[in-house]
């Protein structure tokens, strides 16, 4: 069916290729920051004045934003203990919510939520069989370690070593996931005093020299001072209840106790997540301007970049090609002056021209401002003050790109024009007595075609160069955003800006690619196979 519409078919084919290129661009964008130094480390090293908890929170939020981790919702008590089931799986609000024990009102951010306890008694009884343990994050035990030290803010002294613990009669030690479980079969004999337990659950206190150490059956260990004493050991309450109470108290005391635990996402999943995000137009969240979205920052910058580059490219292309065609046709003095000038101009990079212009017209003569997109005292908007100010600030950046680009086009067009002038069809048209201006039109049109392709090829270089120009003039466009992002290790913004640039180049190339088919029958013939 499509075979009847070769042009449409061609556009579709091209689109597929360009989309694949786009995917490659996304893939490169995805992998580059993951190959080098860890972006999270880089950005965290720049954070100052944060305490440990804040730093950790920030790090986790960055990792989440960068797609390195998934966050699982868990309930965490005031002192950092986390509710877990006996299997060690975190208990989430959803589970409690499902049991109608409490309701999550609103999620303030991904970080905290307000909850409400609907049925405190039921919650309490529901939590009872659940063991709360402190997470052992960052606290690894080895066989020989003495469990002394600072454990979640509570000082543990004179703890038994594992060996000592194992040597106690009536105690069995098993290990699961780097967490030791201690079970006492006969505490009385182990401690030489009465130890009571409730409902078959076994909280044990193990200590030398009278200091408290508590091991909960199941996973881990939780020091709970005051709860028990050696010798009389847990006479009335189970530690479960104590901890459950503690959790409940916390819940009642503070509403925002939902926490998320970071879990590393596999690379493949990260990739598809990133792809999904980008295809949905979400470029992530900036590190530096957190929690501002990259989309927002880019959307602010793009109009400036477009306003700078689009007219420059269009006017530069037209002026350059007209000058080049004129030089090719007239030759003589005009060509002799224009051609070397254009060659010279074309070989100067944009930023060098920018610096010269700043030095001349901004530093020396003070005609034009050297940096910024508009005066500080005007507010962006559709006001005369703003537009005139923007136009005033526009002059130098424009003239730092325009001549370079135009002269590049002029040299190309001149060469092409001279070539076309010498071709057989021009000579034949002359022998046919076709009017001069018509022949000129032939030449211009045919010489323009390679220029069009050249333009597409040059666009990438152009835009890259123009970004540097923006940096020189502190023009508030994409280049500036990219520069500040690079300086501050703002990886999501770098990725976003780079992706926007590559997408722009792709779109421009695609347009030229399609257009050239309409201008050049040779390409068209190749497409239709005629």
């Amino acid at each position: 069916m499509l075979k009847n519409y070769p042009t449409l078919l061609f556009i579709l084919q091209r689109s597929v290729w360009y989309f694949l290129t786009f995917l490659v661009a996304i893939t490169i964008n995805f992998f580059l920051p993951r190959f080098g130094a860890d972006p999270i480390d880089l950005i965290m090293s720049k954070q100052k004045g944060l305490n440990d908890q804040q730093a950790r929170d920030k790090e986790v939020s960055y990792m989440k934003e960068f797609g390195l981790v998934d966050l699982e919702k868990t309930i965490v008590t005031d002192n950092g203990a986390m509710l877990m089931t006996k299997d060690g799986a975190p208990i989430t609000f959803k589970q409690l919510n499902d049991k109608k024990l409490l309701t999550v009102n609103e999620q303030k951010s991904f970080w905290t939520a307000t909850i409400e306890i609907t049925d405190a008694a039921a919650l309490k009884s529901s939590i009872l069989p659940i063991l709360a343990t402190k997470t052992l994050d960052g606290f690894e035990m080895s066989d020989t370690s003495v469990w002394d030290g600072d454990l979640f803010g509570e000082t543990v002294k004179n703890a038994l070593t594992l060996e000592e613990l194992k040597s106690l009669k009536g105690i069995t030690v098993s290990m699961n996931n780097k967490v030791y479980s201690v079970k006492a079969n006969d505490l009385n004999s182990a401690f030489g005093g009465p130890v009571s337990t409730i409902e078959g659950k076994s909280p044990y206190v193990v200590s030398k020299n009278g200091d408290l150490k508590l091991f909960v059956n199941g996973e881990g260990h939780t020091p709970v001072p005051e709860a028990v004493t050696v010798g009389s050991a847990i006479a009335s309450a189970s530690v479960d209840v104590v901890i459950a109470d503690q959790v409940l108290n916390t819940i009642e005391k503070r509403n925002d106790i939902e926490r998320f635990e970071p879990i590393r996402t596999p690379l493949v999943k990260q990739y598809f997540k990133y792809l999904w995000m980008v295809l949905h137009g979400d470029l992530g969240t900036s590190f530096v301007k957190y929690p501002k979205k990259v989309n927002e920052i880019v959307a602010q910058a793009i109009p400036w970049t477009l306003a700078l580059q689009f007219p420059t490219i269009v006017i530069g292309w037209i002026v350059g090609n007209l000058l080049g065609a004129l030089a090719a046709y007239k030759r003589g003095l005009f060509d002799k002056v224009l051609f070397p000038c254009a060659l010279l101009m074309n070989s100067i990079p944009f930023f060098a021209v920018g610096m010269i212009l700043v030095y001349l017209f901004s530093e020396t003569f003070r005609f034009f401002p050297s940096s910024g997109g508009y005066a500080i005292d005007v507010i962006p908007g559709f006001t005369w003050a703003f537009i005139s100010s923007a136009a005033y600030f526009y002059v130098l950046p424009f003239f730092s790109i325009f001549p370079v680009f135009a002269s590049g086009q002029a040299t190309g067009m001149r060469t092409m024009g001279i070539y076309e002038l010498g071709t057989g069809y021009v000579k034949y048209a002359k022998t046919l007595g076709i009017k001069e201006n018509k022949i000129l039109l032939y030449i211009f049109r045919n010489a323009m075609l390679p220029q069009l392709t050249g333009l597409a090829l040059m666009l990438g270089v152009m835009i890259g160069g123009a970004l540097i120009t923006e940096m020189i003039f502190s023009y508030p466009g994409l280049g500036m955003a990219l520069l500040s992002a690079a300086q501050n290790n703002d990886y999501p913004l770098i990725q976003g800006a780079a992706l926007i640039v590559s997408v722009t180049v792709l779109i421009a190339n695609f347009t030229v690619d399609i257009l050239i088919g309409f201008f050049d029958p040779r390409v068209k013939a190749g497409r239709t196979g005629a």
Partner: protein
Amino acid sequence: MALFEVKNLSLHYLTRFGSKVHAVSDVSFELEEGEILGIAGESGCGKTTLVSGLMGLCIPPLYPSQGDVFVEGDPLMNRTPQDIRENILSRKVSMIPQGAFNALNPTRRIKDLAMDVIVSHEGKKAKKKEMYERIFKRFELLGMDTARVLNSYPVQLTAGERQRSVIGISTLLNPKMVIADEPTSALDVTTQKQVIGMIFDLLEKKVFSTMIFITHELPLLRHVADRICVMYAGEIVEMGTSEQLVFDPRHPYTKALMSAMLSAEEGARGKKPEAIEGAPPFLGNEIIGCRFAPRCKYAKEDCKTKKMEIRIVGDRQVRCDYAE
């Protein structure tokens, strides 16, 4: 009065450093209405340059040095390009170029190019549709799938179709005379025959009456031309009827050229083609004696120093003092 007259025409190219290369020297001939003149000679002998001169189209770096061309009695040199474009080209003198592919603008359809020719000479008087019908009628004579060819770009046509299209466009305005500059050299023998047949068909149908046919193949000219002139190094070395030149060449160069041809003519069978030793002279230097002398088998002592002039031998012109 002859339709077309060339008197002592000399043309030179001006090089970048100011020296001249005399590509055509002292060429004179007359052409009556209805006559076909063949011009033969090896590559670089000035055939194509002569064509530019004959049309009055001296595009720098080509300049006329002396002599003039008269079309129906009017001189061509010293007229403005505008004048020549409006009054001579396509209307009185038209050219069929060699290599039709390069001659057609790749980004223009055949019909558009043809319309450009009409509009350039007659203004935008006629409507596009009328013009198209006129072009269509003319192209019908060329024996092609006219509608398709007219609406095609040059890339979409075969070499033969392109050559025919070029012939159609060149003769669109019924020129008095057509200069065919190796119109068939890029084609295979079958297509060659068809194209030449077509040109003569147009002659018969009085689209044009007079023709100068340029080629490097002398035997072909015998079938085509009434008279043949042979050029060497920018000069006419011999001119006569085609029978005379093909079967009884007098000038040593014509003789050598004929024996270098692989010919299927009666009486020429079994002959091995002979190469002409040496290369044509460089025309940037002034040559006093006979230009062919260094390569001539019959060259005498004074050939290299004596200026050779055109002589009438019998009823033909020969530029050799020793030819009989």
